[in-house]
Structure formats: structure tokens, C-alpha cells
């Protein structure tokens, strides 16, 4: 009897293994699986590759702005905290997107396994976390110096931060990053400053009279929305041809 079974060549074997691995790999269905996958190979150094100066400048500007807010905003403390709390997130994105586009590296990054969209999603979590962390001492210091209610200020800043982040993601999902990050600060500034300029006493009274517990729901809703949209953003197909 002839048992001469044709065996695959080394090349065929490798190709088959590659196909199996490919099929078995779970798709990046959410931002957390992406985070897990990336944390194995990426590290903080790569996450902030080329944008360390942007992060440094953002932190510096945030520090200056918050100092000014806390020191001067006795009459409009709640409004000022609400308006200023997304500043770190806002400035970080504006500077990072501007620098990445200027670097001209996006065409190289866009053909890699992990694209700029993937990296941006992880950076969003980072900048979001940094913003939350900054908001806590700011609310505490403002509470002490300006006799404000710590929990109210904290909830106001979380609410504003998640709202800003949600609005940014909505824009990023539908248009180019450079448009989204440049337009939103203008929109945010107008929405917050116009009512303040018109009648700051009424704005401040409204925010001051809001019971703290009534802010918990919007914070939760915006936070959930943020993660839902972030998951959608991770799967966004972006064209990097003109970058």
C-alpha cells in the first residue's frame, strides 16, 4: 500500500498558520480591548511620541488658567469652573492634532497596523484621565479659597469635561480632525461666554442654585455617551492621503 501522503511545504505551512492566527484574532471591537492590545507593545513613550512638548505646554497653560480662575472668579466661580474645566482636553487636542498634521508623518502612520485613530483613542483616555485628575484639586482649592461647594464644583467640572469630550467625538466621527479640534473651542467659548457676557449674575445664580445631586445624572449620561462614541471612533475608517 502506498502511504505517500503529500505534505505541505514550509511556505504553505507558514501561510496556513498565518491564516489561522488572523482568523482567531479578536477584532478590536472596543477601546478597552485596543488598550489591552496596545499596552503590550506601546508604552507611554510611544503614546506621546513627538508630542511631549504639546503635553508640557498644555499642562503649563492649564495651570496658569486654573490659577487665574481660582484666584479671581469669586463672583462667577461656578460659571468659570464650568467653562474652564475642559481646557486641558481642549488645548491638548488642538496642539497635538496641529503638530501631527504639520509633522507629515500621518501617511506613514496611516498604513501601520495601529493607525492614528487607534492612537488618538488611547490618548483620549489619557487626556480625559489627566483632566479628571486636575479637576479634583482645582475644585478643592476653589472650594477653600472662594468658599465654594467642593462637590458642586467637582460635578460641574466633570459635567463640562464629558460634554466637551462627547461633542469633540461627534465632530471627529464626521469630519477631519483638524476641523473638529479647531472649531469646537470656538463653539464652546461662544456658548459659555455669550450668556456670561449678557447676564453673568443670572448664569451664576442658576448654576449655584442647581442641587449637586441633579448634576450626577448628566455626568453619568455624558460619561456613558463618551465611551459609546469612543468605541465607534476606534472603528472609524479615516483617509490619510492628504495629510
Amino acid at each position, binding site marked *: 500500500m502506498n502511504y505517500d501522503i503529500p505534505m505541505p511545504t514550509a511556505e504553505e505551512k507558514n501561510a496556513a498558520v498565518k491564516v489561522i492566527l488572523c482568523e482567531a484574532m479578536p477584532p478590536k471591537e472596543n477601546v478597552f480591548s485596543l488598550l489591552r492590545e496596545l499596552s503590550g*507593545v506601546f508604552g507611554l513613550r510611544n503614546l506621546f511620541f*513627538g508630542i511631549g512638548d504639546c503635553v508640557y505646554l498644555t499642562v503649563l497653560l492649564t495651570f496658569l488658567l486654573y490659577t487665574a480662575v481660582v484666584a479671581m472668579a469669586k463672583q462667577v466661580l461656578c460659571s468659570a469652573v464650568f467653562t474652564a474645566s475642559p481646557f486641558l482636553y481642549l488645548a491638548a487636542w488642538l496642539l497635538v492634532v496641529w503638530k501631527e498634521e504639520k*509633522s507629515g508623518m500621518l501617511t506613514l502612520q496611516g498604513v501601520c497596523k495601529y493607525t492614528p485613530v487607534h492612537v488618538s483613542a488611547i490618548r483620549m483616555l489619557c487626556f480625559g484621565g489627566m483632566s479628571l485628575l486636575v479637576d479634583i484639586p482645582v475644585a478643592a482649592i476653589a472650594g477653600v479659597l472662594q468658599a465654594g461647594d467642593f462637590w458642586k464644583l467637582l460635578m460641574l467640572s466633570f459635567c463640562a469635561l464629558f460634554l466637551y469630550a462627547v461633542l469633540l467625538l461627534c465632530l471627529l466621527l464626521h469630519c477631519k480632525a483638524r476641523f473638529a479640534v479647531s472649531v469646537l473651542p470656538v463653539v464652546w467659548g461662544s456658548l459659555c461666554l455669550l450668556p456670561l457676557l449678557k447676564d453673568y449674575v443670572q448664569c451664576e445664580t442658576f448654576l449655584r442654585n442647581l442641587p449637586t445631586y441633579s448634576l450626577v445624572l448628566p455626568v453619568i449620561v455624558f460619561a456613558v455617551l463618551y465611551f459609546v462614541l469612543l468605541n465607534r471612533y476606534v472603528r472609524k475608517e479615516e483617509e490619510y492621503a492628504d495629510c
Partner: protein
Amino acid sequence: MLTVKNVTKKYGSFTALEDVNIEFGIGVHALLAPNGAGKTTLMKMLTTLMKPNAGEILYNDENIFLLDDKYRDVLGYLPQSFGFYKGHTVRQFLLYLAALKGLGKKQANEKIDELLANVGLSDAASLRMKKLSGGMLQRVGIAQALLNDPQVLILDEPTAGLDPKERVRFRNMLSELGKTKTVILSTHIVSDVESIASRVILIKNHKLLCNETVQQLCSQLNGKVFERTAAVALHDGEVFLSERQDANGLVNRFVSHSVPADASPVNAGLEDVFLYVYGEEIQ
């Protein structure tokens, strides 16, 4: 196998590529066409940087845009020009791209050493990117395209800026890679691909003109290319290709469909085909 199926790409109302069909198998495929023909446009679509307006691009019968990161995982690309952060060293730049390609740090460092040696830049690993010359930068670009051992390697004018020694080194490297991988490169420098391309693709008037071997292309002009002293003007029906200087003065090279009595026949090369096909466009 990478298959381009009925692909059309428009920029606004301008059609850059129309109904293009190409199959890229293992081997070196050279896109040979003059400026503005649509080489970069085609490559940007092959690398998922840009979507076609019509048609599809398949890798092993699956749409590359649906394969997404699985396709990019087997892809290497050298753009016609690329940016970088000036203050980083060559190694830092390559390590970052290696991480984006999913390589661990140890594996990446080993691969970077190997690739820098292959492109003759072992001594430049710790140089800052802003200090590199044009040719060195191009070689770093070639190295980054090979970081993930790609099955599909797409190179947009890879030899631009390389000196003759580096061109030869690069040609040998491509020829080796072409034995097991799909290599697609664009160029207008005929000598870069004449000896190594398994297929030559010509694009004219935004459409695919032909996709053949060098021999097949040259055979179309065999027996039709002649040389004659430039002192004699070209006769009717003769198509000028190029001129060169020899010991007796200037010599014209031209295509003629009948055999002229006063000219000597020469073997047709790929450059003759290129000049014949794109003659009017180039002039």
C-alpha cells in the same frame, strides 16, 4: 495576490485613474509612467490611504478596506515623500513605527539593526533625523517599509535621491525580496527596473496601457529601433527617441517601421519603449 478590479479614482471632476484592472502576484511589479500619470494615486489606494470612487481592491480575494488592520499588518509602504519629527534619532523614529506595526521592543531593535545594515546606515542609528541627507532619509524610508516583514511592499519612487552605489544595492535587495513577496514600485527611471521587474505596468491617459514582462514589451519594438548620425534629418514616418554622443558626433536613435538604408539597427530596450509610448507627453 493583490487584485485591482475596475478601479476609478476622481479628484473632484478630474479623473486621475479610470477603470484600472491589474493583478499583482509574487515578484517585482514596476509602474513606469511619466509625471502626473497616476502612480501615486494608485499606490495610495493600494495602501488603504485613499478609497477608489468605483471598483475594488482585493488581497487574496478579500477587500483590503474590510480586511483593515489584517491587511495593513502585511503591508509595507514608502511614500513619495514623508515627514518626521526632526529631533528624534533614526532608531527612535523606527522604534515608533515598529510599535505602530505591532512589534515588541526587543524584536523591533533586532529588526532595526538588520535593516539599517541592509540599507548601509548602521552608523547612523543615533543620528537625529534632521541631520540626514536626502539619500539617507530615503534609505531610512526603505527600512521603515520593511520593519514588519511585509508580504506586500509598495514603494513610491524609492530610488529618488540615491547615489549609483546605493541604487545597485537597493536593486539587489528588491530582486531578493521579489522572490517571495509582492513588490510594487513606481519610477520613471527605466534602468532601475529593467533588470529586476517581473512585470512592467504602463499607464497612459489615466488608463492602464499594458502589464507585461520586459521581454514582451521590448519585443514589440524589435527590429524597429535604429541609430543614425544626427547630421542626417529624420525621414517621414520615423519617430525620434533619443540622442547620444559617440566618437563621431551626435547620433539619433529612432523607431521606423520600414528598414532605412542609411541607419544601423540596434536592440530595443525598455527605455526605447518608454520614450516611444510617452514621446509626445514627455516633449
